[in-house]
């Protein structure tokens, strides 16, 4: 039953759609899982209306961290930041579809964590106010 998800993960891993860098991202955010060496950069182009016009990732890591990043870019493109504020941990895990133990959970959620931080910084950077509730950086 997991197999279809696994195949999908392998597919995103081996044939990523959104890997690469943006030329002039409005925001570039990075994070890593030092324990396993996963490291991801997320580039975002967010327009004045707060819509994610484009989204790309690069970096290194295991199939799960890379596939998760690719899937997340796919989901994010064209979404408004308030749509994305509603996208939570569980949604990310549902997207991946396979059960993850405590260690690999970190791989699966790395890109998600980066996106959340990027959106918070964006919110703070553009209007200088504290992020509203939906945009708090997720606690580790």
């Amino acid at each position: 039953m997991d197999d279809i998800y696994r195949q999908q993960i392998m597919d995103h891993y081996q044939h990523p759609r959104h890997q690469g860098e943006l030329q002039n991202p409005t925001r570039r955010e990075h994070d890593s899982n030092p324990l396993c060496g996963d490291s991801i950069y997320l580039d975002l182009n967010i327009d004045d209306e707060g819509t994610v016009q484009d989204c790309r990732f690069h970096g290194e890591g295991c199939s799960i961290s890379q596939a998760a990043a690719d899937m997340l870019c796919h989901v994010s493109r064209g979404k408004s930041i308030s749509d994305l504020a509603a996208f939570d941990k569980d949604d990310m895990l549902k997207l991946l579809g396979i059960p993850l133990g405590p260690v690999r959970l970190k791989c699966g959620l790395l890109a998600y964590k980066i996106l959340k931080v990027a959106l918070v910084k964006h919110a703070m950077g553009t209007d200088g106010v504290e992020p509203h509730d939906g945009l708090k950086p997720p606690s580790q």
Partner: protein
Amino acid sequence: MSRADFPIFNAHPELIYLDSAATTQKPQAVVDALSSFYSKSYATVHRGVYPMGERATELYEGARAYVAEFLGAKSADEVVFLRNATEALNLVAEAWGRPNLGPKDRIVTTIMEHHSNFLPWQRLARQTGAELVVLPVTGNGQLDMEAARRELQAGASVLAVTMVSNVLGTVNPIACLAAMAHAQGAVVVVDGAQAVAHRPVNVTQMEADFFVFSGHKAYAPTGIGVLWGRSELLAQMEPFLVGGEMVNSVSLKKTTFLDPPHRFEAGTPAVAEAIALKGALEYIKNIGFDSILGQEAALLELLLTGLGQIPGVSILGPEGHLREGLVSFLMDGVHPHDISGFLGEKGIAVRAGFHCAQPLHEALGIPATVRASIGIYNTEDDVRTFLRGLEDARALFTGERQWTTSTASR
């Protein structure tokens, strides 16, 4: 009743164990928790990307969450696993205290502290120049609240106080002390070593900033202790020990550390012990504090009454005031060591000495005491046999009776 849960009494059916304030015996459930973990799920935590490693991590982190709940903490991230209460208190003194205290600061503690909640502050005070203020006890063995109020109002940066005295049995009014201390901006460090197995603890309600205890005094294995700390404080603290398992990233130039609680757990932790600690706390919860408080209070009453009837016995600690199920006492003309040695040969385990509270003994002007302390497995018969043994010891060592074979054997 619960005596049957403890295998030690199977191996030694005659044993009367009245030294639970030193360390408690272990229920079968705890022994089994260890065996079962080692036999079925053993692996290192936080690292293994294989199912058994993930399972071990879940068990270990699950134990942390359970401890947090048991203590009424807001989050599992406030619970740090260490070796014992002593290590936890040293960590607070060094990682929180040392960078925050200087010659202008006052460290307030009490004369009834166990060495483990006294020496770390004594050393810190000497080395930082902070003033060490030691609150006295009243004639009735309670903390002198008048002195506490006065000294705290004179300014305090830390209040380090035990929830329950391991010599007097006094239960201190922590919430009240914490309120007074917080009014001065002091950080409140509570030593819960004698409390957790015997009465409900809620760190949030008592408004502590740090709270520590040892597993081995709460029916759990040796080698595991707990530091609970308010997350805002833990977050500001530098690591205490450094090494594997607590880093974010390490390089020759720059090293960054994990967030609490892992920042404070350097090296491979006491995984099995933490998991078995959860087993022990579950055991306590299952029996329930209502039942524990009731049972232990009844035995304490019997103990206090019985001791009061033995000539020459003087009892330490508060009268007619909330107290823990432990009693320290002196007997005219008989050295504490002889009492405990004599009873020991009869299979009755009680403690003699300073109970790691020499400053208190010095302040009270007494050399050493005998302490009988109650655990979940004690019965009325235990207390009665102990009291009879004490009568024998008195008769013998005061010379009222001669040593004969029948005296020595039980």
